[in-house]
């Protein structure tokens, strides 16, 4: 078994999930089953293969450039005026579970 209950607890913590005891047991089983299948990727030698993040990597980019310049096709000139307006304050708060009309309200942030 690759993934233990301890791993599941650790990863759940990273993902901001708690999971019930039952869910954790099931997750150990499911993750091991899926990762077992995923291990077949190790049959392939990919030493000299470039990783592909998305398909735009192959269309539209300037292959001779590095970093963000590779993706110049997707950028635009800075705009000083005529920018798209942000959502009005009240609209942005409309879906908030809790708000005081100005800010989103949350439980206390500092744990003691």
């Amino acid at each position, binding site marked *: 078994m690759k*993934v233990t209950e301890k*791993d*599941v607890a*650790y*990863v*759940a913590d*990273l*993902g*901001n*999930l*708690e*999971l*019930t005891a039952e*869910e954790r047991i*099931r*997750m150990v089983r*499911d*993750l091991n*089953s*899926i*990762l077992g*299948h*995923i*291990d*077949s*990727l*190790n*049959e*392939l030698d*990919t030493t000299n*293969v*470039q*990783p*592909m*993040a*998305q*398909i*735009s990597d*192959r*269309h*539209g980019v300037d292959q001779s450039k590095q970093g963000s310049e590779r993706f110049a*096709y*997707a*950028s*635009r000139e800075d705009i000083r005026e005529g920018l798209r307006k942000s*959502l009005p304050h009240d*609209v*942005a708060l*409309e*879906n*908030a*579970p*809790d708000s005081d009309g100005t800010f*989103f309200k*949350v*439980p*206390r*942030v500092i*744990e003691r």
Partner: protein
Amino acid sequence: MNLDLLTVDAARSAVQERKTSATALAESFYAKIESDDPKIGAFLTLSKERAMAKAAQMDALAAKGENLPPLGGVPVGIKDVMVTKGVRTTAGSKILGNYVPPYDCTAVAWLEAAGAVVLGKLNCDEFAMGSSNENSAWKLVHNPRDLTRVPGGSSGGSAAAVASDMAVAALGSDTGGSIRQPASFCGVIGMVPTYGRVSRYGLIAFASSLDHIGPLTKTVKDAAIVLRTIAGRDPMDSTSADVPVPDYVAELEKPVRGLRIGVAKEYLGEGLDKEVRSAIEAAIQKLAKQGCEIVDVSLPHTRYAIPTYYIVATAEASSNLARFDGVRYGYRAKDARTLSEMYRRSRDQGFGAEVKRRIMLGTYALSAGYYDAYYLKAQRVRTLLTRDFEEAFNKVDAIAAPVSPTAAFKLGEKVDDPLAMYLADIYTVTADLAGIPGISVPCGETKNKLPIGLQILGRHFDESTILRVAQASEKAVTSGKGECP
């Protein structure tokens, strides 16, 4: 007006020529939804006010004798992963149960600008994660062709609504096959365009490098009309491509004679149901009879597509779904004492089992010590999978393949075995990983009268060719809704 087999052009012409009104048409669709949907489960939310306003606008145009836009008065449904201003949008999840978006998805806005009447929001797997629609937090969708079976997923509501004539056309989303597979299971047309062809702005993100919006329709021509409307560069999505959009409908007139159609042995091997195989082989023969040249090709890395997909997709999902934290919108757990507790409880109570499983798998694959072994490895294999297609398309103009190894399976059959459910995506995840377009067109039925879809895959930004091939197959094999002539 008979709603069965009503196409985009027929609906628009009827309104244009004032044989009916857009208002009356929308009302008949709502009446049909009210009578038929309780046994199908395709709709989650109806947007009557919005639909009737658009219908009235189209009727006013028609009354003045003005030309209606291409979808003028045509009733459509929208998968519930696309945001709609003022109309509840849940992504099939409890965590967005009360979410009323303040803006519109670009594809929906463009469809409406072309006159479409948005009837409502369609059921789907939670955050588009699933292949049977059984992961919807709200209700099951039943396959209109056999109510004991799944409609496919994740755009199950979209496919079922079109198949049962509760919408003329629908929008779906495809990340690993979520448009093509339900289209195949329900006997309608479903198309995933090239990555970047249609803006993703307003599509609730599952896996950003794999997500696509596309049409589900009753005919290939309708798919061409809808795609022509929603395709094109949108400044709101930096990954939307600045590539000219051809008139897909006009392109359909070109003959298929002389086109080279590839057949890959990796798509017809072990695991493919016999009835599906013979339907696909027969459909390929019919393309040959119309003058297509059938050429053997190889896509040697196909067997690595599922593991690659389930790493890339879940890694991106774990990141995208981090935004659901109960702060700005969506569900918030009651009685949490601290911020951290509020995050955890809101997510624990708001997400369903499959979504949690994918967040866990993706977080694991991205976590310290595993990033290179899983995520980076999968990205490298993604390059190999894409090269397979590029090499094949040096030899052929399109590739013909099955959509799914089997026809629609029984509700409940695979819910306890996530890996089995994942493995059935084998013929569809490849196109999403490579970013190439694909279409599912009904090509026959099993003995039990379940539809079987033929998949046509094409080169990047060459939707025109696969639409032409799909239409040739449609004409040869079916009447457009899956019935054999």
